[in-house]
């Protein structure tokens, strides 16, 4: 089916009943499941139903934009201590491209102490004291790999499976495939904190060639939570209701005359907009959360913070939102100065995220939501075992590194306490069980009941997938 026909099909089918946000697959799948309509396979309007029984319903992706240093957080290397500040062996440099390292760099030991925690025995550095509390719920992947070594392309790759803008992001694919179970919130929500927006820009959560109903919608901590959700000054809600009634009545008159089904869709979208005007503020209002919860996350009411966004993430999945993505931009610890080094900046970033990320996992667990929610933590790549020393800088820092880096996952049928993959003694490459970005995508999709090779969309004549032509489900990671 081609693009226009798909949109029309989507629109047409939504007319069967008033449906949730964005005309997406949710509407479709619930509708069709209600009818016990069980066509297997994929089509160009998402999935009629999951390919197999899903283990998880939702995903919360804690995206650490800028790329955290795995060697200072999760992957201790005694050999680096031994050879600290000695020249890097030439064979590591042969044929390699670095973003900033020139010549022969020196190896860099982590200045931080590591310990093994919990029954799992996960290694973690002193910078992440709260991680200890969730270690046994988490699978740590030490051997993620990516093909990209610059931020924007690598972030796009991690989010869309392709290094240039234009492809749908994972959240878009999932809402396209499965829809959202939320009646009055978008199925794919994005929450931003940290220094800036992600380097890849809004393309990191755009819908690419999928219809824009599947794009990630930013819920903002400052100003209006969702752009234009608030009534303007001078428009009380009863007045807004009156105007909406009038718009509906006039649109109905028009529809009666022209019979254009798009008008009916528009009428229902205005109603949904009205519902969002209460559902969004209700969602964003953290005042009803208990004192204990606030303390657990370390929230800062009224501020733009990762901790606040973590509570919101939980509230969003509670309300059936399919894919919640948090971005915390920082982590780009090159060591060109105190503002981006490993000694000063990295600990500060860890303080910003460690407690809240751990709290999120604990909170989901205590509410029984962790079973159906996958939490993913990680950045677009990792960092080098070598000190960068750009232009002779004396601050400690590491360059971009994509061969092996750490991410962790919890919940949704991911094996708790598992340590996946081994890196070599410098932490430079995987020596056991490497996992590509496409593998990660395939595995997440799998847990949501989707065969990644069968969730496709035809664009410019070619069926596209999130995983392009690659990707394998990493079975070892699964319960």
């Amino acid at each position, binding site marked *: 089916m*081609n*693009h226009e*026909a798909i949109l029309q099909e989507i629109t047409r089918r939504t007319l069967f009943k008033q449906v949730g946000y964005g*005309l997406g697959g949710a509407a479709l799948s619930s509708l069709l499941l209600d009818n016990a309509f069980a066509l*297997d*396979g*994929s089509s160009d309007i998402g999935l009629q139903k999951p390919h197999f029984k899903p283990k998880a319903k939702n995903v919360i992706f804690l995206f650490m934009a800028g790329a955290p240093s795995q060697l200072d957080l999760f992957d201790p290397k005694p050999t680096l201590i031994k050879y600290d500040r000695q020249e890097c062996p030439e064979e590591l440099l042969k044929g390699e491209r*670095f*973003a*900033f390292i020139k010549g022969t760099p020196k190896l860099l030991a982590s200045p931080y102490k590591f310990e093994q925690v919990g029954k799992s025995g996960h290694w973690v550095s002193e910078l992440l004291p709260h991680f200890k509390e969730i270690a046994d719920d988490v699978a740590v992947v030490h051997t993620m790999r990516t093909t990209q070594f*610059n931020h*924007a392309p690598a972030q796009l790759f991690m989010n869309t499976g392709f290094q240039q*803008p234009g492809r749908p992001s994972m959240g878009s694919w999932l809402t396209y495939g499965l829809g959202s179970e939320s009646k009055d919130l978008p199925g794919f929500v994005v929450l931003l904190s940290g220094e800036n*927006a992600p380097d*890849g*820009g*809004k*393309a990191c959560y*755009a819908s690419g060639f999928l*219809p*824009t*109903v599947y*794009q990630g919608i930013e819920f903002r901590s*400052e*100003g*209006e939570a*969702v*752009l*234009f959700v608030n009534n*303007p000054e*001078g*428009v*009380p809600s009863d*007045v807004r209701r*009156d*105007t*909406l009634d*009038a*718009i509906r*009545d*006039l*649109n109905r*008159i028009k*529809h009666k*005359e022209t*019979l254009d*089904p*798009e*008008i009916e869709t528009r009428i229902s979208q*205005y109603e949904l907009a009205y519902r969002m*005007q209460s559902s969004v503020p209700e969602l964003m209002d953290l005042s009803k959360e208990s004192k204990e919860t606030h303390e657990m996350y370390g929230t800062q009411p009224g501020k733009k913070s990762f901790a606040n966004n973590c509570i919101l993430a939980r509230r969003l999945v509670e309300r059936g939102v399919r894919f919640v993505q948090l971005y915390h931009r920082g982590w780009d610890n090159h060591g060109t100065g105190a503002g981006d080094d490993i000694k000063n900046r990295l600990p500060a970033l860890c303080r910003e995220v460690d407690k809240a990320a751990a709290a999120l996992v604990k909170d989901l667990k205590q509410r029984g939501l962790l079973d159906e929610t996958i939490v993913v933590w990680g950045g677009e790549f990792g960092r080098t075992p070598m000190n960068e020393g750009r*232009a002779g800088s004396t601050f400690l820092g590491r*360059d971009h590194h994509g061969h092996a880096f750490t991410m962790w996952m919890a919940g949704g049928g991911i094996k708790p306490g598992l340590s996946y993959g081994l890196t070599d003694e410098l932490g430079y490459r995987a020596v056991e069980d490497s996992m590509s970005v496409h593998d990660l995508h395939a595995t997440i999709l799998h847990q949501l009941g989707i*065969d990644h*090779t*069968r969730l496709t969309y035809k664009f*410019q*004549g*070619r*069926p596209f997938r999130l995983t392009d032509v690659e990707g394998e489900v990493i079975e070892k990671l699964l319960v």
Partner: protein
Amino acid sequence: MAKRPFSRYGFLSLAGLPYAFLLFGSSQAMPTQTSKTSFADVAGIFKAHCNSCHTGENSAAGLDLSNPEGILKGGASGKLFAVGKSKTSLLMERVLGHGGMPRMPMGFAPLSKEQENILTSWIDSGAKIDALTKTHWAYVAPKQHPIPTTKLQGWTKNQVDNFILNRLEQGKLKPSPEATKETLIRRLTLDLTGLPPTLKEVDAFLADKSPNAYEKVVDRLLASKHFGERQAMGWLDLARYADTDGYEKDLGRVAWKYRDWVIQAFNRNLPYDQFTIEQLAGDLLPKPTLDQMIATGFHRNTMLNLEGGVDQMEARYELINDRVATTSTVWMGQTMQCARCHDHKYDPISHKDYFRMYAIFANTEYYPTGRQDISEEKWRERDIPAPSPEQQASLNKLNRELASFRASLNKESEASKSERESWFAQIRQAKPWETSKPAVETTNGIQLTAQADGSFLASGPNSKGIYRLKFTSQEPIHAFRLTSIPDAKLPQGGSGRSGGGNFVLSRMSLKVDGKAMKLGRPMTDFIQRGFDLGGLFDQDGNTGWAIHPEVRKPHWLIVRPDAPIPKGATVELELANESNEWPDHLLGRFSLAISAEPKDEFQTIPSNVQKILAQATRSGADEQVVLDYFQANNPKFAPIRDQISKAENDINNLKQAIPMAMVMTEKKGNGPLQAPLHERGEFLSPGEMLDAGIPAAFGKTNAKRVDRMELAKWLVAKDNPMTARVQVNRIWEQYFGAGLVETSENWGTPGTPPSHPELLDWLSLRFMNSGWDMKAMHKLIVMSATYRQSSIATPALLERDPSNRLLARGPRFRMDAEFIRDTALTAAGMLNPEIGGPSVYPHQPEGVWNTPYSSEFWRTSQGKDLYRRGMYTYLKRTSPYPTFTNFDGSSREVCTVRRGRTNTPLQALNLLNDPAFLEAAKGLATRVANAGKPTTESQIAYAFRLCTARRAKPDELKRLVALHETLRAKYIKNTEESKKLAPSPERAAMVMVANVILNLDETINKE
């Protein structure tokens, strides 16, 4: 791949297939017939669903379904079928997923029932392989078809209608009646200008009973200067035109000259062949005009990743890849990018073809800039100054004036020989500069160490500070001269202490015998742009003297006391950095000299002039030096020098104001252009060198050196089957919401076949034969009866042809994002209709931009620029204007052929609550209140008409009046809320009524 016969791609003709069902009068009736199944249908299924794996020598399971031989031969598991026995065939077993093996196509949706039926019926009816030599229809040049005859007489207005009506009649359908005049003029005006009609225009059309009233409107709109804007909108999506580079920093670029070129090209009806040539290869035209250079900005619109640490060669590789993909999409309707990694799976484009095309674009000039040692080197292509005709005229005039001033200065100075010699004699007597050796004091613990040459070197703390220089005058002092001296001990070998070796001297002040004395009349040989010596004597710590980027050269600064300082006075001179912005920019090494020469003009005699004048005789060259000096410094010429420097200043200012244009320029050379093939399309795997060329299956050019010009000429050659079709189809799409070929972004075999193939051919030939006349093509379409039909549907029609492909009714669909804004502003009477110029910043919510490593911010426009058309809104690729994103606007990161057309709650919220749209509602309410309409009802009727061009029907009007009454009553009770919206409850209610009308489906739809 190129060696293989073209015919292997050519057996497929899908023409007519997907639309066939429309002719059977039922939406369920996809053909399931058994008798007529042709091999083309079968091959079409293989092509679309199987060939991505089962193609060529290394195909999966050794099965090659891309040609008849392979299909008959079968693969590793043996023959696919025995003729007549589909039930037991391997093919059907795999397609149906029987026998315990994975169902084919593996990893993708199973075939539909209809497709399965086609396969079985083909096998069972003899598995005939025929029509194999038939090339994919889109690769065959358009043919002249006879104009079809129709049964219905008197309906057609031009030949377009014969094709449409003939097809309708085949399906036993009738066209719809003509739309009302109001609908027609609104439809036309929106389609041709992107703006709603004025009521004056509507009324004139309603009143015009002449037979050619409609055509008059069409001609007026085609001549409108807004026609170019409307047409440019679609083209700018194709050209991925934006105001920033894209990717991480996403910095601004000055690209709007290209945008304006596109608007003007449409307005002056530049023929499409020339339009093509200028954009792809304007720089390669003989003596290209500035306009033709600007046109090449088309491919400069590519994104550019300026993130630190990017491999520039790879960035350039991606840039060229984008140019190949975009060219192929825009002109050929082909997906050449698929062949970047391997031979195209569906279309006759080989991996080599791809890199031959790549080679065509790989020869543009670029220049490394920035520091390689810190990974900040960037490769940039050329930008050129692009003055408007007015600017060029002013520049020419100023240059002429300057030349004449200089000529008269030369003349006068040469004529005044005796005066000159006596002035030189005075110079010989001038008192020389003496280096001062003051005692120094500093603040903030800074150390100043005296050097052997009498200069001082600063060290220690580097955060603001004052240097106090004290001494007793040995002679009367008429001037101080401060010299900045570069030193290897200072950062970057500069003369200041900032990281870049620069300094900011923000204040100089003087005390004589303990009493403050004013300093003034400063002069310097160099000052950093943006700084002003006047700042030395004010309280602003961020202004004064700085010398970036010439930090590695010595520079002097002369200042003079208000009155001569007598001999024997205690002199205290302060040199201060009191900058909050640049506190670490202290002066690093400097010396101080004093002059007893009373005349300013003799204080600045350069040493070489002094030396020459000291000689008894002067050579010719020396004579010229002193003559120049005389001209430049003798007070006698001050007036003419002022004229010269004013002219020079004016020229400089004008040059600053002249915008740049991003252009393509070609590296010179002979012989074929070349580029390496890249294995699997990977940057790191360059392979065999290839000569530039066009895809072999599509033809060839005779040129030895196939460059962008050759490519452009080949594209617009009369026998190119693609270019004209692709363009007329896009024009058609703009009017009807879908092209005759619906997949306007893909004309390869997986694309949809045309709904009206003969019409497409006929239009394409007509387009080419008209000399690629674009306005004529637009006119042809809008003059048709097809276009003029009412868009009102009937249940039967909705059932038969829900997406209106057969055009038994007129088009009705939502406007593009930018035109929704334009419509609201126009209705409110607020639109600033100015054309072109730098992009503008209308109101945007706070906090939308937050880009890493960028200090750029949304600088909201002032005054009338707030109300420009949507297309002039600054487009930042990583963060486009939110309203436009909500309405499916493109981020312009890559070439966009068709925008989606979604219908979402965010759009509703946007139109209801966005301050920009509320402002329009206020404007509309004010406009109708001031229009001299006596009653609320008449005001509302007027507002309704401004938005829809038609009169509200009684029930519509009644509903709106009732709303106004309800809201008025509420606002009377709630004056606090009322006041926030408008001066009176009456008006507040009207603002909300206007808000409602601006939100109506009809207001944002073309119908």
